[in-house]
């Protein structure tokens, strides 16, 4: 058993040489912070309950590294169109539910709720029809 423990110890040291655990944890921390910041704007905002209903066109989707409950974190570039004002590009980081991934395609339109004075306070209603 002591020999095995010694082997494990050697392997841990070998791993530490080629694998920066600290950097990985820092990267994870950073991703979670970014995700939380993005969600906090909507969670603490008013878009879900008081936002103006509108549509947005998806310009691009980039999958991030994080998965929450097996659902990917994605950065979505939207072109938000509100009546009576010109379209504005807005970028959101979202956890996209697996059943709505098929809708998260460039060129697709999605229903949104948005506060007109703060376009970052924007909720993508993946379930709502356009």
């Amino acid at each position, binding site marked *: *058993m002591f020999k*095995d423990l010694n*082997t*494990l110890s050697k*392997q841990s040291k*070998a*791993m530490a040489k*080629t694998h920066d655990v600290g950097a990985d944890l820092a990267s994870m921390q950073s991703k979670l912070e970014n995700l939380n910041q993005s969600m906090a704007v909507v969670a603490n905002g008013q878009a879900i309950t008081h936002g103006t209903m509108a*549509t947005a*066109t*998806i*310009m*691009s*989707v*980039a*999958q*991030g*590294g994080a998965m929450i409950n097996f659902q990917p974190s994605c950065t979505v*570039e939207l*072109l938000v*169109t509100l*009546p*009576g*004002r*010109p*379209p*504005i*590009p807005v970028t959101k980081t979202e956890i996209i539910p697996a059943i709505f991934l098929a809708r998260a*395609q*460039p*060129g*697709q*339109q999605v229903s949104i709720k948005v506060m007109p004075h703060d*376009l970052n306070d924007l909720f993508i209603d993946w379930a709502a029809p356009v």
Partner: protein
Amino acid sequence: MGLFKQMKDMKTMVGAAPGLMDQANQLTANAAAMQAQGVPATPYMAAQEVAVPAEQLEPIAGVDLATFAQVSAGLAAYNYDTSKAVEIAATRGIDEVSWTTAVDGWNARIAANPAVAKQFNNHYTGRA
């Protein structure tokens, strides 16, 4: 009895660990090699550049898509205060009525055709 089984399991784990580590290191190396050849580290999809029928790019009230996007982008300097759009448009010789007509018309085309939206986005972000 449980202790001996745990010891046996640990021995099995120790025996398997080097192979797993080698495979993990090889995965990292392969991913790095693929990235070096231009494969993005994270999956990314952008709207395709699709040809837009000429009639959908006709200027509306004298405002073409590029000008519409540039005036729209100018709003960023005013924290997206829409009331400033008329002033910005005026600097390009577009009167208020024409601008209002252009906003409604281009919004309708952008909503109806993702390819128009893509071109607007390109002009807005300077990628055109």
